[in-house]
């Protein structure tokens, strides 16, 4: 009996891991193809696509594509710009959107439902429809910096950051999560003398780990993949992000190897971000341990 059930158990495990493995392979293949190809010369890269060799580091392997990519475009600068814009936006967005959701869920004030409805309505407005008015606005906005008062935000980090800090989807996710927190926790904190600010910092945010991670991931991906907006508002290389930088490689002579090298390079921050957040995500769930 024990033998048989042990065997069926093992069989089940094998089947399960085989299926999971196949799914993992499906997801990993494009990534492998990209990285492997980035080390091959163009001609071999194209002929290899007809066979499994496309996924294997065989033949004429070198880092020439990477060297060429760096010669063609300021790759480091682009990655730096994207990391700055994305990082700052994600952090500000987490703060601003969670604070807004906090006010919508826990604090009572007049007009709160109406304003929340309006914010949620912005979810169905595609960015493309507001891009042009936003461009006009951004080109006229004032700013006080090192050179004193100036007008027009074009060619800057702030024009890539500020419009995306307040985010209807993020607010919506925070609102949903906060509504599910036990109301008596907030009331207990109020009775104990905590101010709204203290309740936000000491009670709500420490319990918001999972939704913070979710919003951070969504926001990171959206910001890192920005293309249309930076294309419109940034004409100078100094502030150009990675996705716009891809244009450098789609000139008359299309160098596939260099494109693969560039793509491999700009994928690195995404992987780093994911690995860091995955650990924080699991830790936050483990430490919360909300249990009835």
């Amino acid at each position, binding site marked *: 009996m024990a033998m048989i059930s042990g065997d069926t158990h093992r069989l089940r495990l094998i089947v399960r891991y085989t299926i999971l493995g196949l799914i993992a392979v499906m997801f990993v293949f494009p990534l492998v193809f990209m990285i492997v190809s980035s080390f091959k010369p163009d001609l071999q890269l194209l002929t290899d696509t007809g066979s499994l060799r496309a996924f294997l580091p065989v033949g004429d392997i070198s880092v020439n594509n990477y060297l060429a990519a760096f010669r063609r475009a300021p790759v480091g600068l682009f990655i730096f710009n994207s990391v700055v814009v994305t990082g700052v936006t994600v952090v500000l967005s987490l703060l601003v959107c969670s604070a807004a959701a906090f006010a919508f869920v826990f604090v009572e004030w007049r007009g709160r439902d109406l304003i929340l409805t309006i914010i949620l309505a912005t979810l169905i407005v595609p960015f493309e429809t507001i891009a042009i008015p936003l461009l006009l606005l951004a080109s006229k906005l004032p700013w006080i910096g090192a050179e004193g008062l100036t007008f027009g935000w074009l060619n800057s980090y702030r024009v890539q950051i500020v419009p995306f800090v307040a985010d209807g989807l993020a607010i919506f996710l925070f609102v949903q999560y906060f509504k599910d927190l*036990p109301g008596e926790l907030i009331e207990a904190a*109020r009775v104990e003398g905590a101010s709204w600010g203290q309740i936000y910092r000491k009670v709500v945010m420490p319990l918001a780990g999972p939704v913070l991670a979710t919003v951070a991931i969504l926001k990171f991906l959206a910001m890192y993949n920005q293309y249309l907006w930076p294309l419109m508002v940034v004409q100078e290389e100094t502030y150009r992000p990675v996705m716009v930088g891809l244009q450098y490689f789609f000139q008359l002579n299309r160098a596939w190897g260099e494109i693969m090298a560039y793509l491999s390079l700009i994928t690195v921050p995404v992987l780093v971000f994911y690995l860091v957040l995955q650990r924080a995500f699991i830790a936050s769930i483990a430490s919360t341990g909300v249990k009835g």
Partner: protein
Amino acid sequence: MANVALTGLKKSYGPVDVIKGVDIAIEDGEFVVFVGPSGCGKSTLLRMIAGLEDISGGTLSIGGRVVNDVPPKDRRIAMVFQSYAIFPHMTVRENVAFGLTIAKMPKKEKEAKVAEAARILQMEHLLDRRPSQLSGGQRQRVAIGRAIVREPAVFLFDEPLSNLDAALRVDMRMELAKLHQDLKATMIYVTHDQVEAMTLADKIVVLNAGVVQQVGTPLELYHSPANLFVAGFIGSPKMNLLPVTVEGVTSSSVTVGSPDLGVAMLPFRPGAVVVGDQVTLGVRPHMLGLGAGTRLPGAVQLVERLGNETIAMLRLKSGQEITAALGGDQPIRVGDRIDPGFAPTAAALFDTAGIALTRA
């Protein structure tokens, strides 16, 4: 320490009146219990005292100061919630110290208070655990600990024991009674469990549908319920209520009759009751005994032997069923005809509107 006074207190949610003008005076150091059926407004009333619900009308004062518009943190109250509401991301120590941390109390003093509370509640060994590693009873202690370290003038409890199992509930009930003796603070306690109410309270407030039905000591409520609602709500098993007709009145007695009872003269002031009124006679199961007083003959339908007493359900001539709590070793059996009786002075009589008549 402080007294609490509710004067004409009202609460409505839009057009719905939930608390309909409540007057209660709570003395300093008193243990007051609000009881009533589910949805009668007990929690709402308590939350109004806490400052978690705003007050639609009337005044609330704590320690002689009107606090209608004072935020919860400035009312010198502490509250223990039904769900305990302890912070899952903090250790027990941090939970208990939460209010003190917020008040920026110096570390030494804070630690001393937490240690003292932990000693009183016998949870020193739990201080470094997280709430997820505690049992229900232990979480309840943490919630109480968080309340006592702040030395509030008034403690508010909203059904604090209802999530515990029966045995633990009895233990915690006794501990709460002891805590009240030790701290001598004013405590207001909400429950729908009448045993908790009877055992803990100096004073019980019975609520129904947002209206105070009666305020009194547990024994006052037991022996002299003000109306039919209180009569039915307090006491277990429930008071037997029998419809009877008034057959005669004097200034100090009311004579009633019914097919079950025959005719009985009861020592009550008639008030507005006149001959011919349909009134209600109330007799507690424990007031019934074999072989004495005014008889209620009937056939035994069901017998429950509890050892210390025997609960018998009888069917009277009219078909009405009543409960009698008899001595522990009664040899009665289902189908027996018995005629337990009660002393007229121990009965209660309610007029046509359900209001109790006063004893003469």
